């Protein structure tokens, strides 16, 4: 069934403070909509449950990229095109720049926002694996104030997160120190453009004299939400990357991921490809030795 425009209210208060007041006045009643690349699809198909929507599009306080000495702060309303065009992101957070090119095509990147991608919380979200291995933090805001938590703690279940009904996602803080880490990001989908991922894996690592000093791994589509792979990290951290350790890491990944069968792929395929991607990253670390 097609959606009816008349069945939904949409208002555009125009400022962050006005939106926060609206949310505080009736917590849970209003659904924020930014670029619409997710909610408008549901709307057209008659699947949009929200009857009252509040527009975040065009609010300047949500759309910015600010480079501080220690971190790059990205407003939740920043589009993926904005991310692709930013020089600091291209040079210091190259995986985020690359993931931004995966978000549909140009017309989608012009509208889709980083905050929308995270709040929507698809298990396959393109920007999530990179942000997880960059140790990003998310900042939320309401009339009660602001709070910041590690992004790795943000998702709590399938399309569920830690935000309260009166909160908005304000910004994502990404530390700059990973510019000196080895980085890995790969998405496996049906085709290169415009395809939602079957599996994606991201990694950052610091290797000294053949020993993995620090490593962070994260995956999309291997669980109900994008998540760090802590046990796989533990299997290699502090170790020499021998073939046995690579194998142990593969086994750790296979033991900790919980993918599902769905329209895009099967759990078995996802497990297998996830382990292969991890092995590819570890082999890159092993062969190229210490970096920077």
């Amino acid at each position, binding site marked *: 069934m097609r959606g009816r*425009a008349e069945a939904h209210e949409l208002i555009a208060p125009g400022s962050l403070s006005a939106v926060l007041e609206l949310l505080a006045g009736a917590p849970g009643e209003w659904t924020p909509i930014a670029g*619409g690349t997710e909610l408008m699809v549901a709307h057209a198909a008659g699947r949009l449950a929200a009857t009252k929507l509040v527009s975040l599009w065009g609010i300047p306080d949500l759309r910015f990229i600010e480079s501080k000495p220690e971190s790059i702060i990205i407003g939740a309303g920043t589009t993926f095109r904005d991310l692709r065009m930013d020089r600091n992101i291209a040079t210091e957070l190259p995986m985020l720049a690359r993931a931004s090119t995966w978000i549909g095509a140009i017309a989608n990147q012009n*509208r889709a926002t980083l905050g929308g991608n995270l709040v929507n919380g698809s298990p396959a979200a393109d920007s999530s694996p990179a942000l997880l291995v960059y140790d990003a933090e998310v900042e939320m805001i309401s009339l009660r104030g602001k709070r910041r938590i590690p992004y790795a703690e943000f998702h709590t279940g399938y399309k569920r997160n830690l935000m309260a009904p009166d909160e908005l996602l304000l910004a994502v803080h990404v530390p700059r120190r990973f510019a000196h880490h080895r980085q890995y990001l790969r998405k496996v989908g049906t085709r290169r453009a415009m395809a939602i991922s079957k599996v994606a894996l991201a990694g950052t690592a610091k290797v000294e004299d053949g020993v993995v000093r620090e490593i962070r791994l994260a995956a999309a589509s291997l669980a109900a939400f994008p998540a760090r792979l802590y046990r796989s990290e533990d299997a290699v951290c502090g170790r020499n990357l021998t073939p046995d350790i690579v194998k142990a890491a593969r086994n750790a990944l296979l033991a900790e991921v919980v993918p599902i069968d769905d329209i895009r792929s099967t759990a078995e395929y996802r497990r297998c490809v996830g382990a292969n991607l991890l092995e590819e990253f570890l082999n890159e670390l092993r062969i190229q030795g210490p970096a920077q």
Partner: protein
Amino acid sequence: MSTEFSSIDFLINGEKRSVRVPPMKRLLDVLREDLHLTGAKEGCGEGECGSCSVRLNGELVNSCLVPALQAQGARIQTVEGLALDGELHPLQQAFLHCGGAQCGICTPGMLMAATHLLANNPHPSMAEIREGLAGNLCRCTGFTRIFESVISAAAQSGEERHAR
């Protein structure tokens, strides 16, 4: 339940227009039903096919994914705004000349995506053309003639730039 209509003003193809529509009405439907600009087509209705592409404040967007209210005060360019005084835009000429249009459903979107590409990058490489049109699906041409049309228009625009 029904909602209040909103008055929305925009500049469409250089002309001031005003409509009263439900704020969640899709821009695509406003263009087609309220303004009778039927160039933009609905293919998939979910932002995957690009046949509803228009430019909104200079940005390429899928008009099926834009609620009307978010176009308040915007400058919108549709395929109807490409030809000037009855003279086809160089891209339209190139699509005709190179066989870039067959059934025509994707063509308005292709033209808008190509217009957007050349506005930002007057001499794109083949890889850039492919990326610029990656969100626009065509089931007839196999894409090659569309890419050739864009190359041809880009080559021409070096000589006689369309003033707009």
